[in-house]
């Protein structure tokens, strides 16, 4: 996976403008015809500087994407956390199998007997169990589903 970044890669060097831009762009993106110019105005940057820096941050994978984040539950879809216990000797192979499912939105290796944790996103609530079943069939390993029963708080902004 070329897009993979591991803790060993360490942080990317960011300057103060990068940090200010990342912090400013974590919400309230203007719904206007010149949104990057507006963002630039707040930071003392030109529209072009904002666009160039943003592209560079995406290319360096400091940002994984830039755009709307959808709550698929609000349009009838579903998200579900899932976990598997994958033997070390087949871990890479199983990771590739699991990641090949478009429904797998992200996937983390974690240090535990349950060592692979991923999120399924499907357009219908019944798609979750169906997809988990297909992952079990493909990998021959059980998938534990951890649907959220209650969300207490979500704050996805991280100060850079």
């Amino acid at each position: 996976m070329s897009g993979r970044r591991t803790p060993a890669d360490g942080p990317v060097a960011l300057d103060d403008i990068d940090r200010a831009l990342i912090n400013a762009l974590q919400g309230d993106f203007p719904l206007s015809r010149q949104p990057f110019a507006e963002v630039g105005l707040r930071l003392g940057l030109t529209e072009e500087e904002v666009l160039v820096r943003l592209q560079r941050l995406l290319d360096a994978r400091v940002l994984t994407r830039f755009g709307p984040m959808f709550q698929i539950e609000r349009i009838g879809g579903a998200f579900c956390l899932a976990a598997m216990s994958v033997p070390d000797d087949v871990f890479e192979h199983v990771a590739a199998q699991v990641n090949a499912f478009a429904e797998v939105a992200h996937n983390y290796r974690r240090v535990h007997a349950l060592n692979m944790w991923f999120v399924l996103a499907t357009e219908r609530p019944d798609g979750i169990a169906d997809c988990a079943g297909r992952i079990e069939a493909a990998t021959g390993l059980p998938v534990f589903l951890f649907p959220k029963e209650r969300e207490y708080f979500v704050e996805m902004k991280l100060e850079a």
Partner: protein
Amino acid sequence: MTDVAADELERRIIVATQGGLPLVPDPWGAVAGELGIPPEELLARIGSMLERGVIRRIGAVPNHYAIGYTANGMSVWDIDDAAIEAVGEWLGALSAVTHCYRRPRRLPDWPYNLFAMVHGRSHDAVREQIEDIAARLESRFPATCRARDVLFSSAILKKTGLRIRDAG
């Protein structure tokens, strides 16, 4: 009930933008052009999707490793069912916690029913925060926490976000 299914336009908006907005001076105009609708209609619809929570937010999604949060600990707690709502609300409001959910136990292997994500700049920093949370939890809600663990991530295997298919 607009809640039940995305209408065709919202579906097309999601498909057109789920990979990200184009980095051009007028990204909404570009997306509107791709969808064959007036930019004003797109902006109005995006505003409505934000208001209804179909869009949570619009902006940059940082790779937390790259911005220095190299430790991401999923703290998990086995909390007495009678106290879970109160503990969840309290834990979720702590500034160290970025996500907090109640989820089902998977006994006997998995006794934990509360998940709280803690990000930090080192594993030790995250462990320290979780110890601090555990101590405060015990003093505020005595004997409600029966067991806990923390699962650190050792690799991001995939992070593409939501993808819905083009054909409706």
